[in-house]
């Protein structure tokens, strides 16, 4: 089976996010007064071949920790978004 998987990598809480802060500073001028806590990150779309959804999640989780994120400063979240 092939599973469509999404990996979201975001900075850990407490790690400075200058990009997020810059975006947040621009918001009032654009009229978005009620938006805050902007965090930036990266999203990856993968197709994983596996026997089960759990298997796909495991492969993607391992890849997310070893390569796609730097666990020193980043968190990775894996979501299986569909089959094939």
């Amino acid at each position, binding site marked *: 089976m092939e599973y469509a998987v999404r990996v979201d990598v975001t900075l850990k809480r*407490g*790690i*400075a996010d*200058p*990009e997020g802060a*810059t975006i947040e500073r621009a918001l009032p001028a654009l009229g978005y007064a009620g938006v805050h806590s902007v965090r930036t990150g990266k999203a990856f779309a993968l197709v994983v071949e596996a026997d089960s959804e759990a298997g796909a999640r495991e492969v993607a989780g391992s890849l997310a920790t070893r*390569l*796609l994120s*730097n666990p*020193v*400063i980043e968190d990775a979240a894996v979501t299986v978004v569909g089959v094939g």
Partner: protein
Amino acid sequence: MSRVGVVVFPGSNCEHDVVSALTALGGRAELVWHAETDLSAYDAVVLPGGFAHGDYLRPGALARFSPVMGAVAALAEAGRPVLGICNGFQVLTEAGLLPGALQKNRGLTFLCQPTTLVVASTRSVLTRGAAVGQELVVPINHFAGSYVCDDATYRALVERDQVVLRYKDNPNGSRGDIAGIANEAGNVVGLMPHPERALTALLGSADGRVLLEGFLAAADDAAAARPLVTAP
């Protein structure tokens, strides 16, 4: 004389500069392709600046999986001098050979400018020839040079005297003004500034000499400490 290997990843760009700087100081330095898996012929190794593997994903994230990195780790384990400059520092943190990580600069722009560094520790292969408190003018050239780590790591770095260089006037938001750190043994050092760019007053500063001369001396010590091998 010791032999220093300067690792070339595809996308590295300071490798020739490092070789020419070490050679100008009387050292013997050679380029080593990243596919190499054996560095036993070298007494010390430098990971130079540049954009290894295009810096795609994160600086250093792909380079740490280059075949040569196993041999770099073995060299570090054996206590021989390992120096990561700029992108090389990023690779060493990604590879777990140094703690912490390097983030985008506070101002979110690339910065190429002279900086004044203050020597914080001389207990490393890079700073062994300098004096604590000595000020050195050495240029930086990076987009992701802001050092970050958690509180426990920072405390440990300070307590174990692993912070080797700090910025006098922090250009990038680095935690504790950190410009360079060492591992606990002092033989693995990473720094964001480029000492090879500060070798002569003709190019603006000669303050990088004391750092690279110290590194070459450490490489010579490592060579002397090696078991003698008779040529077949």
